[in-house]
């Protein structure tokens, strides 16, 4: 990027104003759109629909606001901490209490607090991130997990202090697979 920070901020503000005029959107939406393109520029987001960050030179942004900014990052991302986890039959399994990530920041497992009654006797288990379905997170406020209780119970308890926590991946125990076709 050329130039100091202040002029480029002015340019972006101008782009925001232009976007507001052209798209006849409220100013807030336009600035959100710009914020999301900024995120796309600085961090490569693999999940984003448009991998090409078009407006790299700021001159292009000035002339035409990027339509690719429409999927706002905030609407594609949702908070996962404290969300309910439901099983294949829609049964309530527990709550997401933590997310374990690898060195590159990619989520590896979710720590889920299972079972209990009024907070007594619940048990934490780390579940492989790939086993969780987040498609209902935004609307249903739930995370889906294709395992039933018996499979989770067979897994060792997650202990925060331990260096390498055991993570439940596909079938954790042979007897559990028989129960769940």
């Amino acid at each position, binding site marked *: 990027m050329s130039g100091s920070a202040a002029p480029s901020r002015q340019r972006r503000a101008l782009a925001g104003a232009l976007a507001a005029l052209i798209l006849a959107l409220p100013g807030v939406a336009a600035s959100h759109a710009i914020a999301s393109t900024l995120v796309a520029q600085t961090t490569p987001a693999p999940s984003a629909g448009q991998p090409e960050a078009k407006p790299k030179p700021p001159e292009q942004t000035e002339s035409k606001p990027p339509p690719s900014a429409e999927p706002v990052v905030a609407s594609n991302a949702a908070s996962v901490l404290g969300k309910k986890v439901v099983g294949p039959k829609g049964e309530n399994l527990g709550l997401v209490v933590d997310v374990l990530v690898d060195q590159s920041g990619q989520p590896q497992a979710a720590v889920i607090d299972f079972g209990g009654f009024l907070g007594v*006797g619940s048990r934490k288990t780390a579940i492989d991130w790939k086993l969780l379905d987040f498609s209902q997170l935004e609307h249903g406020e739930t995370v889906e997990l294709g395992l039933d209780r018996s499979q989770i119970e067979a897994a060792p308890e997650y202990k925060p202090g331990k260096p390498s926590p055991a993570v439940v991946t596909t079938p954790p125990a042979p007897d559990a697979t028989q129960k769940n076709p």
Partner: protein
Amino acid sequence: VNDPAISVARANSESKPAEAAAASRGLDGLNLFVANIQTGFGPFISVYLTTQGWTQTAIGTALSLGTIAAMASQIPAGALVDAISSKAKVAVFSILAFSASALLLAIQPTALWVYMAELLHGFSSCTLGPAIAAMSLIAVGPAMLGLRLGRNARFASIGNGIGAALMGACGYYVSERAVFFLTAAVTLPAIASLVPLARLRDPIRPPKSGPSARAPISSLLTNRALVIFALCVALFTLGNSAMLPLAGNILTKEAGDFASLLIAGCIIVPQLVVAAISPTIGELTQRRGRRLVLVIGFCTLPIRGILFATLGNPGTLVLIQGLDGIAAACVGILVPLVASDIAGRSGRYNLSLGLIGLAIGVGATISTTLAGWIADAFGAPAAYVSLALVGLLAVLVAALAMPETRPLSEKPGS
């Protein structure tokens, strides 16, 4: 005997039987609803805060804050309740603090407000418990206190049982947040129960005598019976409080789809036992003395620990929890009763209760940590056996060192 406590108690209970009956019903309701309220403030808070996006560390901080607040305020709260002659007033403010605390949690579950709610609840728990015990003592007098406390325990356990069922259903079918609105709503009947108790006045504080009527605080700390009693209930709690969470954890691991129901059973079964036996236990404290009841109650703990360690069947765990009910009834009645034997007429009754409460709090705090650590390192059976051994120590201290505190006038035939 020219004892002001007894004469006022007679004036309170005997001269106006209608009022005494009303006071009795008031205490019944108060114990029922307060126990109901307290269910919401238990471990469920951590479930609720989790659903609000709180991290486990932040929840730990908030709950520790509540524990520390409760422990730090036991003794000052006791002294405060001693100094206020209308215990009903103390109870009203404590219950109002509970509703404020529940509403803060329900409406604004963000750090500052949750901390405030925890502090409020921690402190007011320390004023409410002693205030209820003191009102019971004032209403019936020391001679009948054992029976009254038996009744208190019965209603409190019914309240606990109903509370657990109600709050559990509310959290499951409505929402976690609704539990705290429900908790706040239950404070209203609790306050209504105080109406017939509003006239009770602490006889220890005649207007002219002032603070000189009280025994010096140092006399409590050097009272052998009080210190030994505090020590053995602390030991009992150290062995007892981690028992249920540990059993629940194992049920969740092994009991499959019914785990939550069985854990609910583990919570409710002891309450049923308390409700069934506590009047008998109260009577037993008057007929046979306090020490015998203390030893019986404590004995159930090592037995329970060994049974938990050896019998793995989930259904049996629920039945074994019935033993917890026996212990809970004995300890629940004896704490306010022994404190009354020792300090009921010294003007330091509530301070003594605070001291015992502090000992119980310390025991409970260490218990969970200790049992968790042993279970991690050596497995759950080792943890059960260790807790059982601590319980055995409590039995030995109670049997060998605890003096009988029952006043001479209460012996049968007098």
